[in-house]
């Protein structure tokens, strides 16, 4: 107990540590253990078998789900990065009144604090067969028949992801941009660089860590998602998360656990690559 009185930090950090231990480390350990268990229709059977993994890793369903998930992750990442960077760039370098800048920044981040499910559902009246987009396009005679791929398609899934997660790019990139010494940009222009050269050779390298943080959020959120994919694809498309979710609803916990472990490893590999670009503590 002596170390507790010597450094009060240990006492202060205890609640956080307990939450992490009880609700992060134990559950993840449980998943790893259960992924080796056997199961039948009624119960879990403690065991040490590799069948869950064997089935998972040899199934073509898994492969296509992973390909689909990577497709969603990469497309969403590319679009959110471009859009998020542009918006952050505009806010950081074009809005000069700090008050207006603050207001616009809040405007961009408020949706984060509202319900994701409702934001997703909101697309249905717009994109549906007789939705606002189709009826408008028909009215102005741009199309003859309703476009079918607007809703319940990969397009709808990616659109919803971009809608939900672009602000995870805007915030960290904006944060990095605000730290860039404005003289550097001036110097770049003075040295004869064009606006695009300045953006790509001065601004982008200086907000590398903001971009990395945003990418980590977007990629991990998309990789682990199941609700957006099942809602916006109308159940037509299966991502890794959807597969796990299906196994959960069939009460095949060991199979779901094995799927979760493989997903975890995949995400950790991707993270270890992205974390090379940043020092999180310096960013705050």
């Amino acid at each position: 107990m002596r170390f507790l009185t010597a450094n009060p930090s240990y006492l202060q950090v205890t609640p956080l540590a307990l939450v992490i231990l009880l609700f992060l480390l134990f559950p993840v350990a449980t998943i790893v253990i259960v992924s080796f268990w056997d199961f039948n229709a009624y119960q879990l059977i403690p065991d040490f078998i590799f069948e869950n993994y064997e089935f998972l890793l040899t199934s073509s369903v898994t492969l296509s789900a992973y390909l689909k998930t990577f497709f969603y992750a990469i497309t969403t990442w590319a679009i959110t990065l471009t859009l998020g960077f542009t918006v952050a760039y505009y806010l950081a370098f074009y809005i000069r009144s700090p008050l207006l800048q603050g207001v616009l920044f809040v405007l961009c981040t408020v949706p984060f604090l509202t319900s994701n499910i409702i934001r997703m559902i909101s697309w249905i009246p717009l994109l549906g067969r007789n939705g606002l987009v189709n009826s408008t396009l028909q009215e102005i005679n741009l199309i003859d028949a309703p476009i079918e791929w607007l809703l319940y398609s990969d397009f709808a899934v990616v659109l919803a992801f971009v809608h939900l997660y672009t602000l995870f790019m805007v915030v960290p990139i904006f944060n990095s941009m605000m730290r860039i010494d404005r003289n550097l940009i001036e110097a770049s222009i003075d040295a004869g660089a064009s606006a695009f050269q300045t953006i790509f050779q001065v601004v982008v390298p200086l907000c590398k860590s903001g971009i990395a943080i945003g990418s980590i959020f977007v990629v991990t959120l998309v990789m682990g998602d199941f609700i957006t994919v099942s809602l916006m694809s109308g159940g037509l498309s299966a991502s890794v998360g959807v597969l796990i979710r299906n196994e959960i609803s069939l009460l095949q916990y060991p199979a779901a656990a094995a799927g979760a472990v493989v997903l975890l490893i995949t995400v950790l590999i991707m993270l270890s690559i992205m974390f090379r670009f940043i020092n999180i503590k310096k960013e705050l």
Partner: protein
Amino acid sequence: MAALGKTKRKAGFIPLTIIFILFIVFLYGPTATIAILSFQGPEGGLTFPMNGVSLHWFRQLFEEQQVGDFGGSLTRSLLLGLSVMLCTAVFSLLAGLAYRRSFKGGDALFYLTLVSLILPSILISLGIGIMFDRIGLSPAWYSSAFGAHLTWTLPFGLLIMFAVFNRFNKSYEAAAIDMGATAWQTFRLVVFPLILPSLIGVCLFGFTLSYDEFARTLMTAGTFNTQPLEIYGMTTNVTTPVLFYALGTMTTLFSFTLISSALIAIWAVRKSRARKAPTGV
């Protein structure tokens, strides 16, 4: 800088402004659409054109439900949100203070907290669900879902606290100690008022993130649904879609009210401080 700003503003200001406006429309448009649709008459359907204008669906929402448990799920979500908010604020404030000194295991715990934030939610949900099942407890919104929510809100709280204390000017504290204040007085009278606006921000995050949380609640809520689960249930067996739009509109309005109250509170705290200390803090 001023000269640069002027030349830059000419190049690209208008296209970028247009992109920004489109982005805002993209962000808020869909929610605004269902808000408009929810004011339809009793015959209203899923999409446009609207069938009359009325408050019919909002009235329906508060009348007895044939499906679902709107009132109960709302109460549970509010209670859960409030307790998650309270714990997030207290736990992350304490942890933020702890990290002002270095201590053994601090780095490991910090990285684990980050992992807790970026780990796919379905993993946490599944893990806590199976764990409760294995130790023979039945999951419930006030136990397992409460813990699951903390794994999502605490990292945000801790990151905000890190940001606050990284920018914290220690000379105010030093001055207080020099003038003979005890550690508790220094905290209560100097540190706490300075970080209060950020703490309000942590509370806002804690409440809204919990109130809207879906993925981590899915396997941890047990028998009784929270509000987002209830809403999700309604999407899969929609009999009256407009009712559902009305619910969405209510929920969004509620979130907006909370966010504006928090922003006003932060602004008020700053303002009253500016009045007390004209030199600015």
